[in-house]
């Protein structure tokens, strides 16, 4: 990979330096994941007028560690008709792409594992690979629920990858580079969310889908297909899936906050030192994570056909239109405020359209059971 200069290597050795940096990031990631599981339970509990975990440690702060220990000492069960090697390797394969993404993320000025010239492209190229682990889990379990979950996950992730990538490309056009560190340092006076709000809306929606978060948690819908592709897993293998899920949640949030919210740069920049930069990165990623939890606690799950038609009939068209508009503006060199205004108009129109559609839907108030779904489009 083409690497750009990135501070001095630890001990002057490139490979040792990479290993030390990766170990630091992975340790941080483990801690973050433990507290993300706790945080999600606590936040969602508050949304539902409950208290969440309170017993383990002060206000339940040690709950994540207790859960981790319980999972590690649980029996590792493999179903008899599972495809042995496919079943056993799938959890580890889901984790590899997340691990690779962490390599390219910028945490502070000139601090990350590696600064790649094609950083943004690297992130979505390796993220595409995590479908493979999910599919292998679905195929190898020898369970029809797992198979259904795997098929759903594959269809959903392949579809939503397109708007995700196109929305990010629109931002890359404005930035003029794919180097994540350069993109962040460009946002010293204004984060890109102010110039490209529509891209952020598309990115956020597609990200929820790629992460299997509600309202797009169809592959793991416990009320429909029990647990989706990891229904047969237990103990340490199941916790590998959870680790990969929460780690990718975190990695995506840092990625998104670096591209749209200004990462370590906005609003303090170089002046306040690397401690502030790291804190800014983490705070901004926490804002993204909080938004994701909020959406999860608020919106009900979509149906499979609604999910697919939303992607193919709304998101992809809007994202290509955005690409076209950005291209026009950049080619003719029209000023940036007008580009921002057009994008804001687009974002408001898009969200307003979704809102109006939801409001103008005929009421289902006094209908019961399947009559509520009387309006299923005739396929």
């Amino acid at each position, binding site marked *: *990979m*083409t690497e750009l200069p990135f501070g001095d290597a630890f001990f002057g050795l490139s490979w040792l330096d990479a290993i030390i940096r990766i170990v630091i990031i992975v340790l941080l990631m483990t801690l973050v994941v433990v507290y993300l599981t706790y945080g999600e339970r606590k936040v969602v509990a508050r949304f539902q007028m409950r208290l969440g975990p309170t017993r383990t440690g002060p206000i339940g702060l040690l709950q994540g560690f207790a859960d981790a220990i319980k999972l590690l000492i649980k029996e590792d069960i493999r179903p008899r*008709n599972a*495809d042995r090697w*496919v079943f056993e390797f799938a959890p580890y394969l889901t984790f590899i792409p997340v691990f690779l993404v962490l390599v390219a993320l910028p945490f502070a000025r000139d601090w990350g594992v590696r600064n*790649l*010239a*094609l950083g943004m*492209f*690297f992130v*979505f*190229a*390796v*993220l*595409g*690979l995590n*479908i*493979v682990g999910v*599919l*292998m889990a*679905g*195929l190898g379990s*020898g*369970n*029809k629920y797992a*198979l259904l979950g*795997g*098929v759903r996950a*594959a*269809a959903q992730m*392949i579809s939503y*990858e397109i708007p995700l990538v196109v929305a990010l490309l629109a931002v890359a056009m404005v930035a003029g580079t*794919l180097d994540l560190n350069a993109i962040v340092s460009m946002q010293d006076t204004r984060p890109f969310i102010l110039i490209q709000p529509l891209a952020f809306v598309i990115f956020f929606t597609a990200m929820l889908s790629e992460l299997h978060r509600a309202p797009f948690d169809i592959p793991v819908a416990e009320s429909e297909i029990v647990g989706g592709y990891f229904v047969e897993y237990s103990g340490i293998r199941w916790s590998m899936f959870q680790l990969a899920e929460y780690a990718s949640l975190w990695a995506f949030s840092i990625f998104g906050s670096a591209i749209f919210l200004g990462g370590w740069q906005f609003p303090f920049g170089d002046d306040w030192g690397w401690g502030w930069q790291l804190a800014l990165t983490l705070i901004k990623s926490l804002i993204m994570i909080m938004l994701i939890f909020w959406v999860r606690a608020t919106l009900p799950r979509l149906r499979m056909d609604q999910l697919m038609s939303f992607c193919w009939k709304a998101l992809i068209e809007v994202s290509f239109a955005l690409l076209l508009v950005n291209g026009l503006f950049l080619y003719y060199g029209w000023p940036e405020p007008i580009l921002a205004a057009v994008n804001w108009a687009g974002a408001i129109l898009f969200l307003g359209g979704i809102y109006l559609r939801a409001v103008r839907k005929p009421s289902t108030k006094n209908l019961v059971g399947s009559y509520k779904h009387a309006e299923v489009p005739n396929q």
Partner: protein
Amino acid sequence: MTTEVLWWIFAVAIVAVSAGVVFARTVIHSAIFLILSLAGVGAMYLFLTIEFIALVQFLIYGGAVTVLILLALMLTRMASSGEPEPTTGVQAPFGALVALGLMATLIGVAVSTAWPGDLGQNAVAVSIETIGEAMFQDFGAPFMITGALLLVAFIGAIVIARQEDDE
């Protein structure tokens, strides 16, 4: 030196998993081996310092094409017992013939052509700007025609796949 050692490790691994594609007992195992093989080829591109092609290889072949193969297999080939269907058939000798012919042609072409950046010359690191300019300026028309062709194929596939009973 390190790169050379890694290159040989990957070369052996790619040949091994490619053999796995051919000799695996079930189609699904073949497809999984195919993913590994294509990802290994992507890693080889990294050693050749063409990282853009390597990432495209991961994105398109690792993440999309093979997943579509797996998805199609999941929807069509899973027997009701949960056991995947084995790969046997009368077409095997013909397949072998085609594969050997293709291999002979590719090796012949690769050996007899003088490539830029051959052994003894320095490897050229191609930046993404160069690729972008070549694609959208120097070869803009072929690029657009290819795009139109893909669009037509795409619409055709949808029309064929969505044929209803009364049409």
